[in-house]
Each structure stands twice: as C-alpha cells, then as structure tokens.
C-alpha cells in the first residue's frame, strides 16, 4: 500500500499509520500515551539539538535514512558531554511512498534508538505531493554529564583522537549513486558508548565533534577558528581503509573532506592521551581509533605528509564531485 494525502489528514488513516507503523516499531510508555506533548523529567543541565535528514538513496550498505536520523541527532547531543535521553521524530512524506518502505525506516529507527539508549517520545507526520520521497527531522535532548566540553576549549599541547576510519559513509553513498559495486559500508553508528567510556575513565575532555559533512578537515578548521589555535595532524596516523583509499583514487576524492556518520574527534590533554585512546577503543565503534595530531600555536590546520612535507588543509568548498581522470 502507498501513502496518499489522506495519511496526513489527521483522521483515521493518520491514526492507523501512527499505530501500525511508528508505535509498532519504536513505541514506548511515553510516546504511546499520544498526548499533545511528552512530559519528561531530566537531571540538571541538558544538551538540546535538531537535525533534518534528506538522504539519497534512502537505503545503502550499512544503514538507511532512519538509522542516520537517530544517530545524527544522538551524536550531536553526545558531543556536548551529554548522555542522550529523548528524541522527537517528524516525518515529511511524499505521496506514493510505499508503507512497507516507511516501516523499514521506522524499524531501523527503533533499533538505532534502542542501541543508543534513547526513547522517541514525540512525533509528527505530514504528507505532501511528490513522488515517494521521505524526509525526517529529529530533535534530541541529553543530560550533561561532563560539563564544559566545547569547541573553543582546545589549547596548545592537547592531542586529537579520531575514533576510526575516514570516509566510509561518503564512499558507500557515492558508490550507490555512481553504480559502483564494492563492499564499502556506511559507518553510521551512535557514538554514545565512546563518550560514556571517555567520561567513565575520567578523561578531561576538552572538545568533541562528530566528523560529518565537510569531513575531518572542516571540523579541525572549526576547532582552530573557535579555540584560536593551530592544529597539526600526521597523514600516516589517520586511519582510512584500503577500499576507501582505492575508491578515492578512482574518483579523485580526498578522505579528509569526506562525510562520515559514525566518527568523532576528541581533543584531550596530552597527559591523558593514551588512556583516552584506550577508552575510545573499548567501544566497538572505536576500535580503529588513533591519536592523529595535536593542538599547536598559530592558526589553521596542517597535515604533515608521509614524506614529512607540510600540506595546508582548508575547509571544504562546494561539493566533492567525481573527476574525469
């Protein structure tokens, strides 16, 4: 069955959509009350954020728009030193969307929410004219456990830890779009376990950022600009899988500018560098983590190349399009 305009009318079909799809896939005691708003209790300060998801294609190796919609918001909340608790999910659905497809997305959201330890407590559904597209907005709140984590906190001598291989998500999406067959899977994942490990192990986290659109180079430039410092990283320490490297060579992409959906950086004091690296590696999403560089005097981001040359890393300009040769 396909979604039609009646599913967004607020009447009978909207109710069945909510009951048979959303509640079935990620219902909980708060959402199931179907009140106008969720009533929540939290401890202390909260981190609060929102993000919208418009992924093409909607399904790809390693994830789908539903999983990204949960992980993206969960990760943004967690990066503030918070444990994510509650999410909302708003859907804008184009008519003609198969209900089965919507259900697959909702199942995926339920799974991701369970893993991330969050509840989806409020939602909304709108149907618009169109041709089978689905757009999701999520917002999320989390309880701050480690206050003071900020992109402006990095100081000379701190080290930068990257939680794993760069570029997997970008490469997986590009492969589908370009019809290239390979085994590259998106890294889409909730990073809550990594953040918890860092906090539990008493790491004095200066800054955390998930490395999404714009890639590592863009995130490190944001660190540089906000903290008023330079960042130096070592090419040879930055993990990238062989397969992604190969695809980059073919398409002329640069891992430093590729999007990820399950990677983060943590900037920590040098004295805790090894301890922090171990904490990240304890999580299954951090097993390829590495200390990739450090905060240095000056401004901007430099990569020290394998030959000990220096390469300036600027922010991403425009969209990375595959080149000719």
């Amino acid at each position, binding site marked *: 069955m396909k979604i039609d305009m009646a599913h967004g009318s607020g009447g009978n079909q909207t109710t069945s959509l909510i009951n048979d799809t959303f509640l079935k896939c990620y219902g909980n005691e708060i959402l199931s009350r179907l009140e106008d708003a969720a009533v929540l209790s939290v401890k202390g300060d909260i981190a609060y954020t929102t993000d919208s998801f418009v992924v093409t294609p909607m399904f790809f190796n390693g994830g789908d728009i539903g999983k990204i919609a949960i992980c993206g918001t969960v990760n943004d909340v967690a990066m503030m030193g918070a444990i994510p608790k509650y999410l909302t999910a708003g859907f804008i659905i184009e008519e003609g969307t198969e209900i089965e497809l919507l259900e697959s997305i909702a199942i995926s959201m339920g799974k991701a929410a369970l893993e991330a330890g969050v509840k989806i407590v409020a939602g909304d559904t709108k149907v618009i004219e169109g041709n089978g597209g689905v757009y999701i907005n999520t917002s999320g709140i989390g309880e701050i456990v480690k206050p003071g984590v900020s992109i402006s906190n990095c100081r000379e001598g701190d080290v930068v830890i990257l939680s794993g291989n760069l570029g997997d998500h970008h490469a997986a999406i590009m492969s589908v779009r*370009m*019809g*290239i067959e390979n085994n590259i899977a998106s890294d889409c994942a909730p990073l809550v376990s990594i953040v918890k490990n860092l906090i539990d192990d008493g790491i004095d986290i200066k800054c955390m950022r998930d490395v999404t659109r714009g890639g590592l180079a863009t995130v490190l430039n944001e660190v540089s600009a906000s903290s008023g410092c330079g960042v130096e990283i070592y090419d040879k320490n930055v993990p990238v899988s062989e397969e992604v490297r190969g695809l980059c060579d*073919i*398409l*002329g992409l*640069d891992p430093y500018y590729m999007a990820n959906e399950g990677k983060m950086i943590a900037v920590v004091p040098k004295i805790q560098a090894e301890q922090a690296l171990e904490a990240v590696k304890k999580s299954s999403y951090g097993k390829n983590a590495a200390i990739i560089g450090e905060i240095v005097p000056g401004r*901007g981001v430099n*990569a*020290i*190349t*394998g*030959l*000990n*040359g*220096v*390469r*300036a890393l*600027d922010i991403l*300009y*425009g969209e*990375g*399009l*595959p*080149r*000719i*040769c």
Partner: protein
Amino acid sequence: MLTLENIIEELQNYDGKPIKIMEVCGTHTASIFKNGIRSLISDKIKLISGPGCPVCVTTPSYIDRLAEISLMPDCCVLTFGDMMKVKGSEMSLTEAKAAGGDVRILYSPLMSIKIAQENPNKEFVFAAVGFETTAPIYAILMEEIEKNSIKNLRLLTSLKTIVPALSFVCEAEKNIDAFLCPGHVSVIIGADAYIELAERYRKPFVVAGFEGEHILSAVYEIVLQLEAGEHKMKNMYKNAVSEKGNLIAMEKVNKYFTCADDTWRGIGVIENSALRLRPEFIEYDAGSDIGLEDSGIQMPKGCSCADVILGRINPVECPLFGKTCTPLNAVGPCMVSSEGACGIWYKNRRM
C-alpha cells in the same frame, strides 16, 4: 644507492641556477600539494602547472552545445562530474540542469549503454572529454554502441592529445627548463612519445608516477640532467609506462578516431591536437567540430587562465584569484575542476 632521504636533502639544499619545471598533469599538481612537495625542496626549484586538465581547456562553445542539448525535448546529456560547474558563454551544466535540462553524472562512459537501452525514446549525448588516457574508453564505448546497435547514443567529443600541446607550450614559453610528463597519458602513448620533444627543444622530459617519492625522484633526475647539461627523455614510471605504450588501446582509438585541429580554451587553435570520430562514424557524432567556430580565446575580463595553463604565472598571481574567482564562484575553468591548477592552489592557499 641513493635513498629518498638523500634525494630530499639534495633537493632541499639545491643552490644552483633557478629551475622552472612544468608538471603537465593535474593529478601531479594535486599530488605535489597532497605530499607537501614544495615544502621539501629548495625555493630555487619552481614547480608550475601546465595544460593537463581536460576540463580547463574545454571551450565555452562546447559547454554551450551540451547545455543546449540538455534543454531539448527528450534529450539527455551524460557527463563526468567535473564538467558540471564549468561555465559556457551563458551557463554551466549545473545551471542548465536547474533550468530543466536533463543532465546525468556518470563515472564510467560504459554505463551509458544500459541507460540508452533502457530509455529507447530518449536521445543521449555523452560529453566525451579527456586526453589520451580516456580516449580508449570512448573507443570501447563506440564498440559497444556498434555491437548493440544502439541508435540513441552519440558522442560530443572534446578529446585532446598532449604532445601537440607540449610543442605549443615549448614554442610559446622559452623559459621552462624541463617537463614532468603525465603518468596516465604516458601509459597509453608510451614514453617514447617525448623523445622527439626532448631533442627538438633540448629540455629534459621525465615521465613520473603519482606518489610523492615518484615526483621527488623525477625532480631530482631533472636537476641532475640540467646540471650535466643534458636533455633526455627518461621514463621513471616503468612499472606502468612502457616505451611504446598500450598498443591495443591505441589501435582501438585509431579505429574510431582521427586527428584534427582543435581549440584550447584560453590558448587558441593547436594543430592536430584533437581526436575526432572518423568520417565513417560521423552518425555517432553530436556535432563535435563546434569548438572551431569560436576562437576559444575570449576569456572573462581579468581571467588569467591562459597564462596559468601556459605556466606563465602561478594561480596566485592572477588578479581574480581568491577574490572574485573562488571554487564556489569560479570565473575561469582552472578554478572549477579538481584537476585545475587554480582550484588546487586555492584549496592549499595558505602554503
């Protein structure tokens, strides 16, 4: 045995007469930045970028023709991603697409066979841009078109050959001391293709691979040759490039394509520098001789892409560089492509 460390040390301490080396290929330019090569060698050795980016030397009229085709009913342009942002005289393919044109990005020309078969009521035109590296793929595409009797897929070619362009640069610019020859093109045409150039212009032509150490070794070879007063072709990418090149690929190219004069954006007409479909395959050509109708040398005001392509100036010396011309709003083609010298310099401009 000389180690990489020795080579770097030698190049760092080079204190002879200033040397200007042109790297012809955009992939070399990118690798030079990616590996921080400039930071490893003496300031007396200047590396300048040449005309080796196929997108950058494509004429505005070629883009215009693609945009026009994309906007015609039941017509669709198939292209590599790089071409999307290059301006024609009025619009880029990105803008044509936004205006309702049918433009699709492919990463392999061979994908167009399936697309044409699946959409028999649409006319497809492949934007066949590139150098000798890409030409064999278009020859294979032609084979497939013939084999599958495909009637709704044609090529608009802007295929260029590197040796005539290098001759042109040597004639136009006397103060370039040596050339780093393109690795990928050389795989097809073979290292021997540069012997005559090296003799005629009395300059070293060194074929290099794309890793940082390949480039450093090739630069070192050039320095040694120049210090010894030599001017030889030297193939330093032997595991990929043979003397004679890929004969099978060239045979396929020769079956479908023949040499013709062509216009290079910003430079003008270079004799025998194009590969065009042979007259017997003209039914598969979507009007590729269009490039000759404009001289291709009228450039936007202030744009110095021509000087950049000929190695007369570095991108930063262009008055528009980084001011009105940036990757997000490119005035000249060298800023658009990921292989273009200006785009590469801009992304690494703090160096």
